[in-house]
């Protein structure tokens, strides 16, 4: 099975701006794997200072399969994951 890494920055700025909620929404995608026909395992990693100190402007910062999403929202991250998996 293929694997997609989703790294969620959990610095103070990012947590305040919804990083924990984004991480939970990504985990919740696993429950929809049949509906979404996932053939990829999505792994959520909480990472410290992923933003390298730039989170004030970019938070919350999430990196989906190497692609950064600044000012991420749950819906944007979930859509990105689904699109990446669909592209294989």
């Amino acid at each position, binding site marked *: 099975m293929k694997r997609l890494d989703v790294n969620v920055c*959990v*610095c*103070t*700025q990012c*947590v*305040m*701006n*919804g*990083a*924990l*909620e*984004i991480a*939970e*929404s990504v985990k919740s995608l696993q429950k929809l794997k049949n509906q979404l026909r996932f053939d990829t395992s999505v792994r959520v990693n*909480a990472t*410290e*200072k992923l933003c390298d100190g730039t989170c*004030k402007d970019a938070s919350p910062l999430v990196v989906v399969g190497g692609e950064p999403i600044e000012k991420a*929202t*749950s819906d944007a991250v979930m859509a990105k994951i689904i699109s990446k998996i669909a592209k294989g």
Partner: protein
Amino acid sequence: MRGIYTPVVQIRRQIFKKVAQIAFSGEFDRVDQLPYEIIKGEVASYRESVFKERAIVAERIRLACGLNLRSAGEHAPISKDFGKAITTERVFELPLVNVIPFACNSCETTCYEVSDNCQGCLAHPCSSVCPVKAVSIVNGKSVIDKEKCLKCGRCADTCPYHAIIKRERPCAAACGVGAIESDELGRAKINYDKCVSCGQCLVACPFAAIADKSQILQLILALKSDKKVIAEVAPAFVGQFGPLATPAKVKAALLALGFADVREVAVGADDVSVSEAEEFLERVPEELPFLATSCCPSWSVFAKSILGEELSKCVSMSLTPMVATARKIKEEDPNVRVCFIGPCASKKLEAFRRTVRSDVDYVITYEELMGILAAKDIDFTEEAEMNPDEAASSTGRNYAVSGGVAAAVVSCIKRTHPDKTVLIDRAEGLANCKKMLMLAKAGKRNGYLIEGMACTGGCVGGAGTIQAPVKSAALVKKFAEESPYENRFDKEQK
């Protein structure tokens, strides 16, 4: 909505951070500008006008500074009376929880409505089950006569298409004590004779129309002053600030913020468990028919109101963990100030109750603390040394989770009376607590130890939390397991 980062949560946290920023910088004259920093541009995002959006934020800023709401009918800048807030003393006056009237959506009170999902079916059981003939079939669809409707919900339960929906005000649905009423314009209005300040209405309102007062400003000014402030952190703190914020890192972050020391409120909980165990053994059933735990102030106030004067003695007289811990701190040094950092709004009221001296000077929630840390740009990177002698027991740490208080008391009873059987009943959420109290009042819980928690899940479900309650409960239990002690007796032996 809990566990979802909505614009309501975003605005609330932004306000905490902005208020903290002006407190740290001392640029108090910027307060009138803050709504423009939070609601940017000229176009409204969620309401009919950007001016209204900013006006609502302005009221929330005043509450966050500990000030009263302004009347929409008088001219006053946000900074009206702001000088009163610039102090290290408590400024806020009751009421703690406030509805911002012009922010309220005036949602309709509870009613049942037929949706477009109605198929006009041949069976139409909705009309058959209605005891007052409020459901009729008009042009092939069900129609509910709201004048006749008893709001019993039978029609909704029986509809095979789930076409009948219950519409509720979110604030009223979240309120377990029926304190949400309406003003003359149909806007939510809190009946403060009933309200126990649990704060569930403020997290349930999808229009950000309800907020509580805060001490962010006064606490930061105290931290900046030469006053020594000690933080006492309630047991639900584990996991609140993200997966990397271990207890040692939370302690380090609080020290970096300027607190002189950090203590676990669970240590006070250990004392409370012993005290309530003794109270139970001494007084139940000879003097009291049952004993109700006392650590949740919303539950405690509510229980006394339901039980009436005679049975209100059944609510334990023991101090709450917050007060027990603060007293310990002030016994060591009466000149320090104590800040309780916890999950809920009602502790703010408890701290300033006049009947029991609390010894707590400031109360802030985890969410408010997050705003303060973000304003100061403090991350959870450093680890502070944890003193094992100051560690709380596993049962004390589990106070944060529903069932934890009763389990801790039983653990202490079993230590001195191993053969004693203790009957327990517990409830979470004030509506459920009411059912349990009615049974107790009717004599059906005689001999019991009963535990009530105002918030679903216990303290982990409090209105001032960040982490989703279920996840938080699991993390609290894990942290509890790391304690070398089961209860205070173990600690004393070691």
